[in-house]
C-alpha cells in the first residue's frame, strides 16, 4: 500500500510535467488545428535556458534558493515565449492558408532544426543541471518519503494551470482565444486580431513548456539536446488522450499517462515503459475516438 502511494506520487509528478507540455500542444491545436511538432524541443530549450541562466542569476541572487529558482524559471519562460512567437511568425504563419500537412512537415523541420542546432551549440553530451532549490528534508508520513522537488513540481504545475485557466476564462485575450478557436473567420469579422491571438497562444504554450523543461531538469538533472523528443511525444499523446483542443483534457491526459507509466514500470516491467503511453492511447481511442473529454466532430455534408 505504501509503495503504491509512493508510486502514485512519483506518477503524479511526472504526469504534471507532461500535462504542462500537453497544454501547449492542445492550445495550438485548438486554435490552428495543427500539431506543433517542435513543441517538445521548446521544452528542451527551456531546460537549457535554465542551465545557462543559473550561473548568471547566481551572481545577483543566492542559488539554490526560492527567489533564485523563481527568477531562473520566469526568465526562461520569457525567453521561450519569445522563441515560440518567432517560430510561429517565420515558419508557420506563411503557411496558414495551405493544407495542414505542409505546416506539420514545417513543424517537423523546425523540430529537427532545433535539435541539431542544439547539438551543435550546446554539444551532444548530457549536461548536469544545477540545483535551483535547496533540498528540504520532509517528514516521513507513514513510511512515504516525499522528495521536495516532487512537491514543488506538483505545486508549480497546479499554480500555472490555475493561472492559465484565469487567462483563458477571465481576460479579454482569453475570450479572444476561445473565439478564434471556435471559429477563426467569425472571430476575425467581429474585430478579433487573429494574428495577435495566435502569437499570444504560442507565447503562452511555449512559456508553459519552458516551465515544464525546468521542472523536469530539477527532477532528472541530466539534460541533452534530444531530451525533448520522448516527453514531447508522450505529452502529445496525453493531449490526444484527453481530447485534443480541450485544456482540462490535456491536464487529465498528462496525469493518466504519467501515473500509468510509473505504475507499469514499477510493477510490471520498466523496459516496456516507453510503449505504455501509446498502448493506453490506443485502448482509449478505440472506445472513445475523440479522446476522453473531446467533443465528437460531426461531418457536415
Amino acid at each position, binding site marked *: 500500500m505504501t509503495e503504491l502511494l509512493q508510486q502514485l506520487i512519483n506518477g503524479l509528478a511526472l504526469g504534471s510535467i507532461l500535462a504542462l507540455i500537453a497544454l501547449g500542444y492542445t492550445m495550438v491545436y485548438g486554435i490552428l488545428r495543427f500539431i506543433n511538432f517542435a513543441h517538445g524541443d521548446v521544452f528542451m530549450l527551456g531546460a537549457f535556458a535554465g542551465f545557462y541562466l543559473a550561473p548568471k542569476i547566481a551572481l545577483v541572487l543566492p542559488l539554490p534558493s526560492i527567489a533564485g529558482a523563481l527568477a531562473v524559471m520566469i526568465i526562461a519562460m520569457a525567453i521561450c515565449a519569445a522563441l515560440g512567437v518567432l517560430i510561429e511568425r517565420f515558419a508557420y504563419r*506563411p*503557411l496558414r492558408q495551405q493544407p495542414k500537412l505542409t505546416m506539420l*512537415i514545417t513543424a517537423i523541420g523546425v523540430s529537427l532544426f532545433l535539435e541539431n542546432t542544439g*547539438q551543435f551549440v550546446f554539444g551532444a553530451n548530457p549536461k548536469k543541471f544545477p540545483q535551483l532549490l535547496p533540498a528540504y528534508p520532509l517528514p516521513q508520513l507513514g513510511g512515504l518519503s516525499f522528495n521536495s522537488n516532487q512537491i514543488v513540481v506538483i505545486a508549480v504545475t497546479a499554480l500555472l494551470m490555475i493561472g492559465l485557466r484565469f487567462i483563458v476564462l477571465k481576460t479579454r485575450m482569453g475570450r479572444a482565444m476561445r473565439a478564434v478557436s471556435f471559429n477563426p473567420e467569425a472571430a476575425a469579422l467581429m474585430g478579433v486580431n487573429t494574428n495577435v491571438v495566435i502569437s499570444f497562444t504560442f507565447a503562452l504554450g511555449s512559456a508553459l513548456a519552458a516551465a515544464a523543461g525546468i521542472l523536469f531538469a530539477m527532477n532528472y538533472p541530466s539534460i541533452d539536446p534530444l531530451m525533448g523528443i520522448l516527453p514531447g511525444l508522450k505529452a502529445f499523446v496525453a493531449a*490526444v488522450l484527453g481530447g485534443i483542443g480541450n485544456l482540462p483534457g490535456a491536464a487529465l491526459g498528462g496525469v493518466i499517462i504519467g501515473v500509468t507509466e510509473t505504475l507499469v514500470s514499477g510493477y510490471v516491467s520498466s523496459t516496456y515503459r516507453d510503449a505504455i503511453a*501509446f498502448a493506453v*492511447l*490506443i485502448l482509449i481511442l478505440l472506445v472513445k475516438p475523440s479522446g476522453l473529454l473531446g467533443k465528437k466532430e460531426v461531418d457536415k455534408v
Partner: protein
Amino acid sequence: MNLRHAKTVLLGAIALSLVASLFSRHISGYPLFVAYNIGISLIMAVSLNLINGYTGQFSLGHAGFMAVGAYSSAVITNHFGDLNVFAANAVFTFALLAGGLAAALAGLLVGVPTLRLRGDYLAIVTLGFGEIIRVILQNMEAVGGARGLSVTHGWTNLFWTFGLAAVTVYVVAALVNSTYGRGFIAVRDDEVAAEAMGINSTKYKVTAFAVGAFFAGIAGGLYAHAIQFLTPNGFGFMLSIAYVVMVILGGMGNTIGVILAAILLTLLPEGLRMLADIEHLPGIAGSRPLSWVENTRMIIYSLLLIVLMLTRPQGLFTLRRRSR
C-alpha cells in the same frame, strides 16, 4: 502516371537493374550502399504514398512495418548457412515475401481497429503502433533485443533493390489507376460522398494499409540484407517521418514526384557529407576547407526542409495545385 507503357517500363527497369547488378562488383561498398538506400527509400515512399497520398489517410508508422519485415526476413535467412546462387536467391525471395506478409499482417492489425479515427488521431495512433513495435523488438531476446541482430547474409544487390522498387511503383500505379483503385482516390477526396456512392471506405483503407505495409516489409527485408545489422532503435519514428517528408515534398499522390523526392532526399545528406570532404573549392585559390559542413550537415538539411515547405508547399514536383 501513364499506364499504357507501364509494363514496358517495368520490364525495362527490372532488366536494367539486373544488368547493373552484374557490374556492382566494380563499385566499392559505400556508393553501393547509398544506391541500395535509394532503392529502399523509393519502395518506402511510394508504398507510403498509397496510404497517405492516394487514400488520404495519415500514417506515421511506416518504419514500424519496415522493422517487422526486416526482422522476420532476417530471422528466416539466418537459419541457412552458405548456399549456392540459386538456393540463396530462392531463400531470399521466400524471406522477402514472408517479411512482406508479416508486415501486411501488422498493417491489418493497425488498420482494422483504427478505422474510426481520422486525421491527427490516426496519425498519432499509427505513430504509437510504430513505437510499440520498436519497444516489443527491444524486449524480444530471440532477436537480440536492444543489442541488435546481425544478419548472416548480404544478399541484397542492385537487381533485387531496383527490380523490387520497379515492381512497387508498378503495383501502386496500376492499383490506383484501375477501376477498383479509383475508390482510394474517392475515399481521399470525400469520404462521405464516396460512402454515399456505395464505396466501402473501410475496405479501401484497410487494403491501402495492408498493401503499403507489405511493400514496407519488403523494403525492410532488403535493408536487413544490405546493412546486415539491425537494431530496434534504427526504426524509430524519425525514420517514419523521413518517409512522410518524401511523400509530401514529392507531392501527395504524385508517384513520379515521390520517386524524385525519395532519390533527392536520400542523396542530399550524402551530398552534404561529400561536400564536407572537399579540401578546396575547385578554381578558388586559398578557399577554406568545407569541413564545417560535416558538423552542420543536419542543420542544413532541416533548414532546407523548412525553406522548401515555405516556398513550395504543394510539393517540389507538383506543377499545379490540386484544388481542395
